[in-house]
Structures are given as structure tokens and as C-alpha cells.
């Protein structure tokens, strides 16, 4: 079976699953006549029904539901097998790129390119398998499959089961299209498609207004990034006349790096990067990711940890030829990456919701990946993406299992002492926390350490970036183990009812946890640092595997001066900081549990600032949402959401204020002139009205008079 030619089938399997769910989903999983939480509480009382609680009672479900739990994960499993087959066959090929073009999707018309030549605005529905997309499809399908299995257990008691799996499969379809696309236009299709699925999945509990608000926020903020992305695509069209990655790389191959200031190449690269910040939640456009925790936990695991958010990193790596020619933009990417890393890590310190901590940790880790890409070490960025997918997905699924055990409780302050009650979840999350902290032997250590080394040694990197990265490593270790100690150590702070109900998750949830835990450990060993030269070649497989993807120009940049001793020293330092972070967390949250609160008061404005996410949401609301209109009268202090009431997204209220003005303008001024003309005509008609007396003979007389005048005039002339 020639898997290489069948790569266009890989995305179609999940699509088949999704379409199946949309068509016969309701028959397989008949929904109750009206789900309990559909009604407003006061309406429910009025109707004499009990107001539905989320996880309260478990409605009975039809046996055919089990069919769904076989179909959807099944399709992802088939994609996984096909991907493995394709990658293995790709490894056998001499030159590592295989392109399958189905048909010309967007067959546009000729247009004038930048240099006056006439190119054709065309993009085809084509799939490209090369080492980079090989890694990505393996990650997406492997992690995706286990998350599907996990959600069978997690979503077992939810209504809308078919809808959840339909959206999940649709997401995997769009993600695979994004990763396998052979040109920017098709990549953009996957790009917006995953944005749509994240909107659908975040807003899965659509009876909750906060969930649908978060969904819209995610979609609109992503759309802001996509707008820049579209402009970037047009720039590429103008530069090279085509959008196929291979052709673009070839076209750019000849050009020399743009050293003189911010040229066209840098602008294109920057536009693409702005698109990436929207999708991968970097500094300006990251506000949607923490709110995206409104969605069910498997969604956070799949979309907001392993796959979708990494699309931005993949896209930057994919256009490495372009970025390596634009050192200005590389610097921007690296600095934004580093800034996001440290900024998100600081916020994670003070978060009490377990999923919010993980969300900020994801934003921080993505910052690392962009830092790596920014300093030219693209393979390291992808390697960190690879390892991050495992342990972050595991952390999310673990927190899902904790929440499942605690009956929906997400606030860490009401948890504690779960170590012996849910042992498997504890051990798997412990492994993941060690990995993310960067303890040697675990995946996180290898990838993060490589990033720090590249930040130090690469010509694009700088000592400042390395310093920021290392401090963030310390903070990451601290907040991760703060989470672990607060949830699993100490005595259980939950109320009696939930405490009685704590139970270990069923095997359908714990098995994926253990597999991902194994992944979190083994994944790291693929990209062992060069300093450990004593290990056989296969341990450097990852860098070697991605080698052919990088255009030569980018390649030398990745090497940098290679002093083994220096690398050992830096590695030692980062390990030391990681262990220190864990010990501080242990000290604060296990030995002296009362200490953190005292520090919080002592730290004055710092702690509340951290607790409220540096007031970023409030600043956004104030600047964009509330608009400048109320500036004068309002005190600058905190708003609660009730006052803003549906401030939909960052730009919500200002646009609503602007639209109110334009609405008023439209109805009064523009429409007003039209009504004015009508009124004027009415006024003129009054004097004329007196002639109409209704007296027939008078009309005849007037006619005769007219005739007389006419005749007279004619005679005189």
C-alpha cells in the first residue's frame, strides 16, 4: 500500500467521522427532549422543573452511544496508522519531500506581481509530506487519538456527546489539512478551520454565557491574526507569484538576506508572525487562551496545549527560508517569545484555578518555542513543540481527571491531599511536572535546555534572551510544583460532600495518561544535546531528521560556536534552578502552608497584580472595550464584568460606541436629508391645492381661459 500517495486520505478519515456525526449523530445518541440546563433558572422554577446542575444527576443514555465512542477515535486511529506508514516510507526516500496535488482549488486570474511580471493567482488542493509535516502529523494523530480515548470517559455523562466528538473529529481534519498543506492558501484554510473548531468546542456548554463569550473572543482575536496572515499571503504572491512552499523556498533561495532595515521580506515575515501570535497566543493576542478554559478539559488538552496553538510555530518553521532572510523580524520573534514566556509565567504564580495555571504555562512554553525559532534554531522549536505536546496534554488530562474526581471543582484552594486517593493521576502528573520543570532524564529538560543553549550560542541569540529564558525556567518549575503541592499534598480542603465522592478515574482515562507519561519521558531522548556526544547517533535523531527541511541559509545559523564545556556549565545551571524552584514550592506549600498568604500581603500590590493577570483584561476592556468616551468621568480602578455586560471582546465596547454613533448618524443625518426633501415637496403642494375645488365646470372654464390665452398669443405673434 503506497502510503505516500495516500497522504491526502489522512485528513479525510476524521472528516468522514465528523460528517457522520452531523448526519446520524442525533439518531445514535438521541438527546433528551429538553436538556435540564437549557432553561433559565427562574424560567425553570416557573415551569416547575428542577434547575439543571451541570454534573448533578446522570441522565440515562442510549446504548447506540457506544458506537460513537468506537467510530470517532477509530477514524483518528486509522489516520495515525496511515501517518506512521507514510513517515516510514518517507524515511526510505532519497530526497525527503513528497507532493500530491489533487486539483487546482483556487484558480484565480493573472495579476501583476511586485516586479511587474504577470503571475497567476492560483492555489491548488495539494498535500506535501516532508520531515517537518511528518513530525507534526505524528504528534497530532498520536496525541489526538489518546485524547479521543480519554474523552470517552470524561464526557461519558454529558449530553451532546455526538456533538462533542463531531467537533473533535472536524478539528483533527482541519489540523491535518493545515499541517499537510503544500501551499499557504490551503494552510490558511486549515488555519481558520481550527479557529472555527476552537470556537465550537470552547462554546460547547453553550447554555453558559461565559462559555459562548469565550468562544467568540477566541474566534475574533484569531480573526485579527488571520487578517494579518492574509496580507502576508498576498505579499508572498506579490514576491514570488506562487504560494507553494517548495516554489517559494526556491524563489527566495537566490535572494540575499535583508540587512538594510525593514524591507519587504521583513514586512512579509512580520505579517505572517502577527498571524502566528493570534493563533499561538503570544503577547498582544494571547488574551483568548486563558478564557478558552471554559471548554471541556480534553478540548484544552488537544487544542490549547498540543496542536492548534502550535500551528503558529509550525508556520514560522515552515517559512524558515523567509525568516532567515529577515534578521529584523527574527529579532522581533525572539524578543516577543521571551517576553511572553516570562510574562505568562509571572501570572501563573498567582492563579488559583488549576486549568488557568496550565493555560498560562502553555502561553509561556509557546513563548519558549518562538524564542527558539527567533534565534534561528527551528529544529529546537519543533523539538520543544514535540515534547511539549506530550507533557502539556498529560498535565491537562491529569487536571481533567482531578476535576472529574472532585466533581467539577477547579479551584486548587479547595483541593489537597489527593496523593493517595487518585494515585495513577498523581504519578502521571508528577512525571509531566518533572518534565516541564526541566529535570534531566525527562523530555522537558532536553528541549528547554537546547533552547537556552541556542539562545546563548546562536548568532541571532543574545545573552539577555538566555537570561530571560533561564529565569522563566525557574518560575516554570516553581508554579508547576506549586500546583502539584496544592492539589496532591497537605490535607484535603474540599467540603464533605465532594471529599466523599473522590474516586480514581476509570481505566479509559488513566490508560491515555500512562501512555502520555511514557511519551513525556522517552520523547526527550530523541534530541539529546550535542555535548552528550558519547551517546550513539540515534539519540540525535530529531535534529538529523529535520535537517533536509531547512533551506541552507537557515542551516548554518543554527550551528553557532560549539564549546562543550560552556554547554555543560549552562546545562548544570538550568538544572540547579529547576530543582531550586521545586524546593521553594515545596517549602512554601508543604512545610509552611500559611507562609504564601503572609507573603501575599507583604508583597503589597505585586500579588493582586499577579492575581488579576496584570490587569491586562481590564486594560484591554478599558482601552478597547470601554472606549475613550467614558474616560473623563470614570475612575481608572477595576470594573466588574456586570457593568460592561457583554463586552464581547477586546474591541467590543469601542466598536459598539462607534457603531452607536454611526447608527445615530445613519438614521438622522443621511436618512434625514431624504426625509427633508420629501417634506419640502409636501410644503410646496399646499398652495397648488386650492385650485382643486372639485367643481367640474370651473375646470372647464380654466381650460377655456387657457385656450383663449394661447389663441391670443398665437394671433398677436
Amino acid at each position, binding site marked *: 500500500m503506497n502510503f505516500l500517495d495516500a497522504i491526502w486520505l489522512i485528513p479525510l478519515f476524521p472528516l468522514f467521522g465528523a460528517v457522520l456525526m452531523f448526519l446520524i449523530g442525533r439518531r445514535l445518541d438521541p438527546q433528551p427532549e429538553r436538556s435540564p440546563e437549557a432553561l433559565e433558572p427562574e424560567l425553570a422554577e416557573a415551569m416547575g422543573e428542577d434547575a439543571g446542575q451541570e454534573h448533578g444527576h446522570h441522565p440515562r443514555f442510549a446504548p447506540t452511544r457506544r458506537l460513537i465512542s468506537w467510530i470517532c477515535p477509530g477514524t483518528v486511529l486509522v489516520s495515525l496508522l496511515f501517518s506512521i506508514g507514510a513517515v516510514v516510507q518517507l524515511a526510505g526516500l532519497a530526497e525527503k519531500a513528497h*507532493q500530491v496535488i489533487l486539483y487546482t482549488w483556487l484558480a484565480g*486570474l493573472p495579476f501583476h506581481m511586485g516586479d511587474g511580471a504577470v*503571475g497567476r493567482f492560483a492555489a491548488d488542493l495539494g498535500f506535501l509530506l516532508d520531515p517537518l509535516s511528518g513530525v507534526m502529523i505524528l504528534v497530532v494523530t498520536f496525541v489526538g487519538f489518546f485524547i479521543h480515548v480519554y474523552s470517552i470517559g470524561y464526557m461519558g455523562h454529558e449530553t451532546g456527546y455526538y456533538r462533542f466528538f463531531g467537533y473533535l473529529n472536524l478539528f483533527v481534519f482541519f489540523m491535518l489539512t493545515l499541517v499537510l498543506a503544500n501551499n499557504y492558501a490551503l494552510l490558511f484554510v486549515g488555519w481558520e478551520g481550527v479557529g472555527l473548531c476552537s470556537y465550537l468546542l470552547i462554546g460547547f456548554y453553550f447554555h453558559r454565557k461565559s462559555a459562548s463569550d469565550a468562544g467568540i473572543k477566541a474566534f475574533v482575536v484569531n480573526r485579527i491574526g488571520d487578517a494579518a496572515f492574509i496580507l502576508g499571503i498576498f505579499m508572498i504572491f506579490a514576491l514570488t*507569484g506562487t504560494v507553494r512552499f517548495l516554489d517559494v523556498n526556491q524563489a527566495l533561495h537566490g535572494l540575499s538576506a535583508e540587512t538594510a532595515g525593514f524591507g519587504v521580506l521583513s514586512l512579509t515575515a512580520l505579517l505572517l508572525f502577527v498571524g502566528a501570535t493570534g493563533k499561538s497566543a503570544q503577547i498582544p493576542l494571547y488574551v483568548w487562551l486563558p478564557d478558552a478554559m471554559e471548554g471541556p478539559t480534553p478540548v484544552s488538552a488537544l487544542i490549547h496545549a498540543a496542536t492548534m496553538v502550535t500551528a503558529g510555530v509550525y508556520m514560522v518553521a515552515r517559512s524558515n527560508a523567509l525568516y532567515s532572510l529577515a534578521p529584523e523580524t527574527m529579532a522581533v520573534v525572539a524578543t516577543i517569545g521571551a517576553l511572553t514566556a516570562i510574562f505568562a509565567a509571572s501570572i501563573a504564580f498567582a492563579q488559583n484555578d488549576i486549568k488557568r495555571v496550565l493555560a498560562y504555562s502553555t502561553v509561556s512554553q509557546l513563548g519558549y518555542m518562538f524564542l527558539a525559532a527567533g534565534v534561528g534554531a527551528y529544529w529546537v522549536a519543533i523539538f520543544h513543540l514535540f515534547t511539549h505536546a506530550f507533557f502539556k496534554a498529560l498535565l491537562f488530562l491529569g487536571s481533567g481527571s482531578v476535576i472529574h474526581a472532585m466533581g467539577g471543582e477547579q479551584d486548587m484552594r479547595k483541593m489537597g491531599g489527593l496523593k493517595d486517593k487518585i494515585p495513577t493521576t498523581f504519578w502521571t502528573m508528577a512525571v509531566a511536572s518533572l518534565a516541564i520543570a526541566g529535570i534531566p532524564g525527562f523530555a522537558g529538560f532536553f528541549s528547554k535546555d537546547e533552547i537556552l543553549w541556542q539562545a546563548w550560542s546562536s548568532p541571532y541569540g543574545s545573552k539577555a534572551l538566555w537570561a530571560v529564558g533561564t529565569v522563566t525556567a525557574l518560575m516554570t518549575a516553581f508554579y508547576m510544583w506549586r500546583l502539584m503541592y496544592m492539589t496532591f499534598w497537605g490535607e484535603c480542603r474540599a467540603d464533605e460532600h465532594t471529599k466523599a465522592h473522590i474516586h480514581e478515574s476509570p481505566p479509559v482515562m488513566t490508560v491515555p495518561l500512562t501512555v502520555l507519561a511514557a511519551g513525556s519521558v522517552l520523547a526527550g531522548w530523541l534530541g539529546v544535546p550535542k555535548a552528550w556526544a558519547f551517546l550513539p547517533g540515534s539519540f540525535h535523531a530529531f535534529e538529523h531528521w529535520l535537517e533536509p527541511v531547512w533551506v541552507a541559509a537557515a542551516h548554518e545559523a543554527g550551528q553557532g560556536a560549539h564549546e562543550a564545556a560552556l554547554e555543560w556549565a549552562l546545562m548544570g545551571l538550568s538544572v540547579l534552578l529547576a530543582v531550586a524552584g521545586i524546593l521553594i514550592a515545596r517549602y512554601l506549600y508543604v512545610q509552611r502552608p500559611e507562609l504564601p498568604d503572609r507573603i501575599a500581603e507583604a508583597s503589597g500590590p505585586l500579588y493582586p497584580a499577579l492575581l488579576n493577570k496584570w490587569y491586562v483584561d481590564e486594560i484591554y476592556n478599558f482601552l478597547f472595550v470601554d472606549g475613550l468616551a467614558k474616560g473623563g468621568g470614570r475612575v481608572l480602578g477595576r470594573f466588574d464584568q456586570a457593568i460592561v455586560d457583554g463586552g464581547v471582546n477586546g474591541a467590543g465596547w469601542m466598536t459598539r460606541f462607534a*457603531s452607536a454613533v454611526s447608527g445615530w448618524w445613519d438614521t438622522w443625518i443621511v436618512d434625514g436629508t*431624504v426625509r427633508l426633501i420629501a417634506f419640502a415637496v409636501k410644503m410646496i403642494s399646499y398652495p397648488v391645492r386650492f385650485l382643486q375645488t372639485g367643481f367640474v365646470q370651473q375646470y372647464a372654464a380654466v381650460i377655456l381661459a387657457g385656450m383663449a390665452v394661447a389663441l391670443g398669443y398665437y394671433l398677436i405673434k
Partner: protein
Amino acid sequence: MSEHLLSIVLFTPLAGMFVLLLLPSSNRKLIRVWANIAAFAGFLVSLPLVFRFDRSAEGFQMVEKAPWIPALGAHYYLGIDGISLLLVMLTTVTGFIAILSSWSAIDRYEKQYYAMFLLQQTGMIGVFLSLDFLLFYVFWEIVLVPMYFIIGVWGGPRKLYAAIKFFLYTLAGSVLMLLGILTLYFQHHAQYGVYTFEIDALMQTAMPLHLERWVFWAFFIGFAIKVPMFPFHTWLPDAHTEAPTAGSVILAAVLLKMGTYGFLRFSLPLLPKAAIDPWIVHVMVGLSIVAIIYGALVCLMQDDWKKLVAYSSVSHLGFCTLGIFSLTPNGLAGSVIQQINHGISTGMLFLIVGVVYERRHTRLIREYGGLAHVMPNYAFVFAFAMLSSAGLPLLNGFIGEFTILQGAFEANRVWAAFAVTGIILGASYLLWLYQRTMLGRINNPKNLKLPDLNLREWAVFAPLLVWALWIGVYPKPYFEILEKPVAQLVERVRPGYFEAQAAKAPLEAAQAMESRMEAGIR
């Protein structure tokens, strides 16, 4: 029979109308059945147009010419090219769907209602087929009358105000357009000594630039009111909110396209120097961009569902006019495709409001909430229409907007930068509308018992859904149909455009690449 195809397509609805008038008005069922048959026949008759249309032929096809008023030099002159083919197909499809959708919506004077609709069908098809200016003007006026009655008789509470405003507003515009036509007509006579209204003859008139500008402004007023472009759009929300569902579907899907079609068929080819004149182009593009952003902003503050969709059409058509006045092949082709997409997606959005209006008889968004619990199929169709309108890839909206933005980008990068914000605002007001009506909990007891879509409503939505998906996934035939007419337009407005350099990857070469399916090229 076959060489009079265009006349058959043109007059089938009219024939249907006459037979309808003969039916007894007491038998309501017969009237409705016959109206649907007539509309479907109109659609069937237009199918051979697509198969017989030769995509590589230059100029107009299936031309029919007969002297109409010899004294004035007016001919009964019909012809079709890529642009008018697509618009005629849109007219016949949406016409049939609109009539099918008003099956249970209309309860009084059905006979007159359906007669008005069929008359309107002929009027609209006439506008798109006629190549003689006077014939065009006659059909342009004919279309107004039935829509006036549809809004005025079967409309909502403020129907009279809306109907009169719609009628007078458009009439004022078309009168100025007539002035333009006559100037052209006499100018042609002054040069060639023969009185004629044919477009290809009038194209030969050489006019000084300032005169061309004046005629352009006269045409502009006539077409801009119809599109509607920014300052002349205030009739649209009133007309839409007061029109019955089927009326606003036809109004949005086809009537608005007559304005943009006018620009493409008359303003650009007949007045090339004026069309390329930088001052005019800047004004046009400025108005389009303002329309895109202004329309979207006003949508955000509407509480009337139909008014919101009406303003969204102002925003969408801002894209179309931007595409036209970018004067680039992609801009023009994108604009025509966007017009078809707008017909489909806004047609669906209005049908969706109609479905709910039939059940709850109110258009206020506050009245609805949490309908997804009660009407899941309806929620799915609404989501599909919303995403197609917001321009999600793999659906039709994206193809149109992407090509228009590429055309605008090629013409001037700043325009594309401004226009791109339109897709952000577009997504936000649509999603917010969807949230306020579909999601959240049901807070209004009246919403509890709403029945989901019945079979007939599915039959109304199904063709539009399939067509939207088809354009989204495989738009190649549309681009092929448009290639020749758009190339002619651009050649006429920008003479040296295509000779710059041999097209780097002509369409044929792309097909060649496509045939080498398994070539693993590095």
C-alpha cells in the same frame, strides 16, 4: 427553437404569470402549486444556458436582435457573457427558492403576490440579458413596480413608508441614469450620424474626458443607489425590515446586484477613461471601504434581526464595489463571485429570519435566546449560513473575499489593509448575533415549543447549502467562466495590462501540473 433560448428564458416567468392570472383566486392551493411550477420551469429553462455556454469565446453569445422602435434606433437585443450568465443563474435559482419559501408565509391575495414575483423574475432576467440601453432601462424600471407592491401590500407595519421610499429613491437614481444614456446616445449620433442604443455601438463613441466624467457620475448615481453604496443606502434597511421574507430574499439576492452589474456592463466598458481616472477611482474605493467598515459597525448596534442582515449586505457589497474599482482581473472576478456568494449567504440569512418570523412574528433579537436547545437543525443551518457569510474557508464567502482582497492588494496595498478589517468585524457581529439568538439559556417561555425545520424548509435551504459548499470547494469553473469577460474589461480599462510579460503560469500550464499527480518534485 434553440437560437431563441434567451427569449425563452426571459419570458417563461411572464408566461407563467399570465396563466396564473387566469386561475380562480378562490383555489389557493392550485395557485401556489402553479406558481412553484412556473418558477421551477424558469429555472429548468435556464439550465441549457450553462451547458451551451462556450467558456473560451470572446464577446457575447446566443445573441438575438430584432428592431423594436426603429424610429429611435432601439433594438430588442439580447446577449449573454460570463458575468450575466452567473447572475441569470442566481436569479432563476433564488427566484424559485423565494417562491417556494413563501408557501405558508403569505395568506392573503396569493394570486397577486405570485403574479408580482413572476413579473419581477422576468424584469430581473431582462436587466441581465439586454444589450440595448433602452431595453435595459425599461427592464430596470419594470423591476421596481412589483417590488413596490410586494413591500407595500404584504409588508410589515411601516410598509407604506418603506415602499414609497424604495420606489422614489431608486427612480430618482434611474432618471439621472437616463440622462447619462441620452448624452451618450446623442454624442454617438453627433459622431456617426446614426441613432442607436446598442452597447457595442456606443462603445465606439470617443468622448472628451470631462464629458465622460459627467456621464460616469450620472451612471454612478443610478447604480450606487441600487448597490447601495455608502451615502445612498438608507432605503435598504427600511425596505428589508418591512418586506416579507421572500421579498427581502429576492431584494438582497438579485436586486442589489443590478447596481454592481450596471457598473460592470455600462460604466466600465463605455467610459474607460473615466473609470481609470484616479480621482474617480479614489472616491469609489473610499466609499467602498467606508461602506465595509461603516456597515459592519452599524450592524453591531442593531436590535432588529432583519435590519442587522440588511446592514451586513451594505458591508458585503462594499467588498464587491471595492473589487470592481480595483480594476484588476482578480478584483473583478472576485467581485462577481462575491455577488453570487452574497446572494446565497444573505438569501439564507433572510430565509432563516423568515423561518423564525413565521413562528414568533417578531424580529427583535431580544425575543429569542437559546433556540439551539429547541431547534438543533435550524441552529446548524443558521451556523452554516453565518460561516458562509463571515467568509470561512471551504465555503463560498472566503473565495470571493480572498480574490477581491488580492485584487485590491495588487491595486493598492493600503486599500487591502483597510478592507481586511472588514472580515474581522464581519465575524464579530455575526457571532454576536448567533450567540444572542441561538446560544445561552431559553429565557422566554414562548420559545419552548418552537417546531424545528419541516421538510419544505429543508427543501428551501438544501440547494443554497450545496451551492455554497460547491463554490467553496471547487470554484474553478466559476473562474473559467469569468476569465474572458473580465480580461476584456481590464483590457478596455487598462490597455497594456496583459502584455507586461507572458503570464508566468497560465491556466493551461496549471492543468498540466495537475495531471502529473504523483510527481514528487523537490
